[in-house]
């Protein structure tokens, strides 16, 4: 395959004696990489907490639930990441999780579905509600912030109505076979011959691994992912390059809804029942993970690993403070301060690396 450009034109277009600019990316030293910085931070904090409280390394009681939490909030973060990739927000992540789990709950309670059939129902419901949000945004052009906020209110109204109508205790308590196992089993319960996995790693984490793999693959290897990122960089340019931006907006929101449903399922499994308030605490972590990890609020750049690390950072801090016995009167103060400090060091690293490259860098992105 060759472009219809002749030798003469090509020759005319060449710029012979001008030296090429050195690559920009390779200029940043490894220690200024945000992901590596985060990783170091997480490991360092874990070490400090572990030294102060050896119980931090208790596999069953600390590491296991910690990893289960990180896994769940990573999926929550990925749900937000999908819409962030196109420069949108999903303020209804939590409520989408609640909505899809409501259908999962109905499928268990009323239709007596199996564990995974119910999960499938939930994922479909999540995808559908996400697609609905995306469709409204694409059709009306209204800001995603507003649409998902309004959708959040709508669902906040709808969900309790359904729960109070269908259940006695405002929760679906039927537990299909396998749910308890999924909550408690770790890799220690997976054996090949005599070799078993670590008891510290919950089986539930496999959902996060799958989600990360799929999302990571989509964004780094497929046309869909690239088109989403380009849509996030500039909708106009994307539209004019033949990307069906409206469809991409719907896809991104549908992916977000699907992942929210998965996170809701993980929460339901790890706490025990399917209730109306599932996902209420999802919103802030959903932003925190991706953004700490380097995903841009403005769209166009995402990091799946960063989301995992960002989520891990906040979970580890919280867990460590828990173990240190920091009471509620100080917990949030420390949490906020550590977070600010951690982020400032990130900034300091960037500045340092820029200075090494002999110049001020690009100003911080707005918002």
């Amino acid at each position, binding site marked *: 395959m060759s472009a219809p450009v002749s030798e003469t034109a090509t020759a005319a277009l060449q710029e012979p004696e001008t030296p090429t600019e050195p690559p920009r990316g390779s200029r940043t030293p490894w220690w200024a990489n945000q992901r590596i910085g985060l990783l170091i931070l997480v490991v360092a904090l874990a070490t400090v907490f572990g030294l102060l409280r050896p119980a931090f390394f208790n596999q069953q009681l*600390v590491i296991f*639930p910690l990893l289960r939490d990180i896994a769940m909030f990573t999926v929550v973060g990925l749900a937000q990441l999908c819409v962030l990739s196109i420069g949108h927000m999903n303020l209804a992540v939590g409520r989408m999780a609640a909505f899809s789990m409501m259908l999962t709950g109905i499928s268990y309670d009323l239709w007596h579905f199996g564990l995974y059939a119910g999960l499938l129902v939930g994922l479909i419901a999540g995808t559908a509600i996400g697609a609905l949000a995306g469709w409204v945004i694409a059709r009306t052009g209204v800001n995603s912030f507003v649409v998902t906020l309004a959708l959040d209110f709508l669902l906040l109204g709808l969900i309790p109505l359904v*729960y109070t109508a269908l259940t006695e*205790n405002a929760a679906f308590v039927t537990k299909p076979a396998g749910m308890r196992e999924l909550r408690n089993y770790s890799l220690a319960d997976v054996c090949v011959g005599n070799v078993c996995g670590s008891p510290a790693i919950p089986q539930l984490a496999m959902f996060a691994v799958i989600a990360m793999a799929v999302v990571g693959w989509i964004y780094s290897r497929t046309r869909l992912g690239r088109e989403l990122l380009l849509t996030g960089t500039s909708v106009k340019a994307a539209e004019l390059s033949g990307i069906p931006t409206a469809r991409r907006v719907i896809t991104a929101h549908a992916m977000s809804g699907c992942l929210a449903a998965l996170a809701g399922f993980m929460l339901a499994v790890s*706490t*025990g029942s399917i209730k109306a*308030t599932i996902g209420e605490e999802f919103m802030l972590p959903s932003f925190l993970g991706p953004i700490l990890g380097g995903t841009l609020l403005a769209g166009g750049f995402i990091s799946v690993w960063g989301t995992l690390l960002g989520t891990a950072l906040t979970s580890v801090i*919280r*867990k460590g403070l828990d173990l240190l016995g920091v009471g509620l009167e100080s917990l949030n103060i420390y949490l906020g301060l550590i977070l600010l400090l951690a982020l400032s060091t990130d900034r300091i690293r960037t500045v340092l690396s820029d200075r090494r490259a002999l110049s001020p860098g690009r100003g911080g992105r707005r918002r």
Partner: protein
Amino acid sequence: ATGCTTKSGTDTAGGTAGDDASTGTSGGPVELKDGSGVKLALIPGGAHPYFQPWKTTAEQDKADFKLGDVTFNETGEWDQGKQNNVVNSLAAQGYNAFGIFGVSPTDINTTFEDLKAKGFAVGSLASCPAGDTNSADFCLSTDVEAAAYKAAKATIDAIGGEGTIVHLTGNNVDSNTQRRIAGVKKAVGETNGKVTELPVITDIDKDLQTAQKAVADLLASKGQDIKGIVTTAYNPAVAAADGVISSKLPIKVVAIDDDAKILTGIKSGGVAATVAQNPVGQAYVGGWLLALLGSKQCTMKQPGVIVDSGSFVVTKDTVDSYDEERKAKTKALQTEFASQLSCQ
């Protein structure tokens, strides 16, 4: 005494049936032999005035029963996931007896089961799991339906047995709220139509201003028709007491709990009555029980038994004496539980 209902069906007769030969006197509490191995954790659902007596009572437990250690940890912040984390962290640090107010009544059994599976002593305090099963060793809690029933009764009494009342409460999608709504409905139903109830106002316990606004709107639109307000959540109680006074309407407010703010209201007449619960008793007796179970001195004869910790209608007349009654109830609880135990 107020008519405390005990929900455990098998043991309505009182504290004499089924004594184990090895236990102490059937009428009195069992003596704890050695509590030094017990590290007791009292875990409320989150920060709330209701649980504040737990903090001091925990220390009292430690002193009275010579426990190895006690802690009071409210960092779960009304989130079942976070509460589970707190529980696990404490377990990792060697705590082995847990008195827990489960954030989510429908989920807490799962947490209880996890803890039991690891061999810890677990008590459900101040709230019982939703449904018919309690996976903890016991549940020592206000019977919320009964308490709401009493509160509604008190309201009906206060308005003279006739008129319209309204019920203000918290999170609609919570099984305890549903029980409270049922309790009030029951009391209203018993008046054979003399008292009517407006639709329940739910979800206004999140913060004081939401409650205040809801009360003000209610009074502005329906204030003339309402004779009494029964509240079964904290912020609405504070807001209703204040709102009624400033609107100068002749409405009787029945509140919940005995926070300083509300007791002042009772004394000044702004609040007709309140239904006090028994947090001290829950923490004290709960701690004692957990120590017995945690030190393996005793086991429950009937795991999962549910006991009402009592609820007390406080009016201007009883405001100075109700605490005595409550203390008596606490004593009685120990006796009551003694018969539930089989000890070495």
